[in-house]
């Protein structure tokens, strides 16, 4: 048998092409991050635009009066999306795994991932109609005795729940694909062994399936931490209106509005940099915590 360390050279060789590609197409363009500290104008370019220090960050955090509320909204919406976006696909994948009729299972899988391919323009328009004053939801509520129709899309009570639930609705099927694949990867012998031990269905889920996909769940949870400041621009931009800014305005939509007239690359880059730094800190922390308390290495 070869010595393990002698394999390193093979591994480096395998990683070489991909690493080169990443250096060229990801690392080199990062010099553009200096735009966050400039007043960038395409006319003068990255090397000619004047430096303004932390001006762009100040614009974001101090000159815009609602920034704290906006950051709160962003985190609120994205954390809710992340949590539900983990739990529901897992539950769905488990339910699907318990379904034994093969044609049914497969056609269902095909159907539930479909919403993922609809653009937010369409989905937002659709839900706006469903939740409108004359829409199907209000019609039903009025039928069951509500006196005045609720203006869901212009309500600071209802806007966030609607945003979160429609996002989950749109993405759960497709996210479930990952868990379904993970479940198919579980060793069938384990189920056979459990059968021999006389385990019930629930016990098999609890002691075989769930532990089998737990690494995938933890992995997905960790990676999704990178999205804590991404509450979904496309969705909110297509759903919100000035009345619900108080609860629905997020970082990206705020920057969009501030940068409405000119293409403010600098402000956009500054926000992107801020988000990246927060994300990498969170991912690093969760990596360390998982290692320390669960003895589990994500990578």
């Amino acid at each position, binding site marked *: 048998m070869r010595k393990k360390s002698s394999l390193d050279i093979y591994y480096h060789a395998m990683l070489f092409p991909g690493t080169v590609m990443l250096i060229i197409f990801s690392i080199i363009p990062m*010099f553009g991050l200096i735009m966050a500290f400039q007043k960038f104008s395409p006319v003068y370019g990255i090397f000619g635009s004047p430096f303004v220090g932390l001006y762009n960050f100040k614009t974001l955090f101090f000159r815009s009066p609602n920034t704290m509320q906006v950051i709160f909204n962003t985190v609120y919406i994205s954390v809710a999306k992340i949590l539900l976006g983990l739990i529901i696909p897992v539950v769905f994948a488990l339910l699907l795994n318990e379904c034994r009729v093969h044609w049914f299972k497969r056609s269902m899988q095909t159907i539930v991932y479909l919403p993922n391919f609809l653009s937010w323009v369409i989905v937002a328009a659709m839900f706006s109609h469903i939740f*409108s004053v004359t829409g199907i939801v209000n019609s039903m509520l009025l039928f069951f005795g509500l006196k005045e129709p609720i203006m869901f899309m212009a309500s600071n009570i209802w806007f966030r729940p609607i945003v979160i639930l429609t996002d989950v609705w749109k993405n759960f099927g497709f996210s479930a694909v990952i868990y379904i694949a993970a479940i198919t990867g579980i060793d069938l012998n384990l189920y056979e062994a459990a059968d021999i031990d006389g385990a019930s269905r629930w016990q098999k889920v609890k002691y075989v399936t769930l532990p089998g996909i737990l690494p995938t769940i933890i992995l997905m949870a960790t990676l999704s931490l990178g999205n804590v400041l991404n509450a979904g621009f496309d969705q909110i931009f297509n759903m919100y209106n000035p009345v619900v800014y108080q609860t629905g305005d997020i970082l990206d939509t705020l920057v969009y509005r501030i940068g409405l007239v000119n293409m403010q*690359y600098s402000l956009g880059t500054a926000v992107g940099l801020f988000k990246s730094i927060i994300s990498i800190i969170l991912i690093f922390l969760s990596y360390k915590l998982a290692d320390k308390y669960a003895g589990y290495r994500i990578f």
Partner: protein
Amino acid sequence: MRKGQKVLALMITVTMAISLAACNNAKPKQAQTGISSDLMKPFSRYSKPVTITVARQTNRGGQFAKGESTSNNGVLNVIKKKLNVDVKIAWETDPGSYKQKLALSIASNALPDTFVVDDYLTFRALAESGKLADLTQLYKVSIGGFAKTTIDSYKNNPLKPFEVNNKLYGIAAPQNGYTYNFMWIRNDWLKKLNLPVPQTMDDVKNVAKAFVDKDPGGNGAGKTVGMILNPTDPLADSSNFYSATTIANAVGAFPNRWITGKDGKVVWGNVTPEMKTALGTMADWYKSGVFDKSFMTYKSVDEETPYILNNQAGIFFCGWWGPWVYSTMFKAHPEADWIPVMAPLDSDGKFKHTNPMEPTSCQVISKTCKNPEAVVKAMNVQFDAESMQFDSDPEILAMLKPEREQGGGGRTIDPFSAIANYASMVPDSGKAITDYIKTGNLTLSPLLASQKQPAEDVMAYYKNKGTATQAQRDTFGAYTLGAPLTLDPRNVDVPIAYSYTTESMADLWPSMTALDKQTMIQIICGQKPLSYFDDYVAQWKKAGGDVITKEVQDIVNKSK
């Protein structure tokens, strides 16, 4: 591992050096101009073919005649025939992505020969950094035909703002005047309810209320909307659909405009006391159900037009072209009788409005362009072709025919920025065409050559309403109902004090605009009380309003 890091560092340095070098190499060279004075003349033809490259934005939507495209069409063929100039497309995008692509083009120093800059500050930066060709001399000798007449027909020189250090760097298509909104109202509903045509503010409110409460359209309770309101910007530029600027104008407020106040000082229309009055009225109207309750939840006017078409709305604001909005409703609702009304009038019985802001976008020529005069000449040809000045030449007429029949209005295939009409095109053609119906004689000045077809359409509908097409009926409505109103003596055109951007606007204006729009909507639909307006004004001033107002005042003072 150190080695790896070194390699990485080296690679970055090398690549950055390459990109730097590339930037340096691409420094614009001043093109040699050894062009004979004959070739500088507006319509002179080259003996050898000359190529110019353009960047263009294309609003597709399938508006091409068969066999035509942006790179192969009648207008390009006419330019080739007249001048021996080949117009090549450097790149093209849809209108929504144009700015982005242009910014990248600029940043990478890969500018086409000619392109449109639709952002005034970018224009200034380009001109000041020497990336644009100086058009001062060129404009004097090379521009001609309809293009020149059009630009000259405007009272204020529309090219003034495109001069930097007394040199001209851009050619602008002036904005059409007479695009302000009228109130379009269902006359049949008024008659049904025995109501007079509304004139004052209160009249309008009462009529709209009556439409909602009494349901003259027979839609069932709660299904009728009194008045449609622009969802994204209810006080948008007056030429926008369903903008309630007309209501604000009636109380002396001029939102989204720099105007001269009573004290002679320049003021931003949104922060005047009159604006508070206007918003108070609108909030009251919203509360009492005059406006569509959920107007602010729509994404575009496109979601509101169906109310008009479906017989569910009785009032909307729109320019003289209103008939094209409700065009398709007559099959289902032949009884619909829309009329444009000059209402609400102000307390003096006048119908005040402002014209659109002066253009802030223009066609420029890159300094690296070898034949800048060819660009100007090609523009001359395009303008003349589209305004039907060449129609006496059957060969050219044949080239342009497919596109005319397709009805693209030229904008899909024209290589240069939108063709403008000369200043008083709307009232003049309105008058000429209404006279045509009365007298049977059509007299169109050469500048109105393009209005011949509409005139014939109007006549066709007038002569036989039964067999006329939908398009002929719409044209009839626009030219005989809408356009003549622009000649009404009650019109008062309030001059705009300033149309362009200032130094500080680049940083401050975007967030102030966002504040403007959001406050207006929040006050109208009662989310914020009217008293919040004072907070808003204070906030606006602090956010940069004071600084910018001063800058505007200084510029205005200087130009006096």
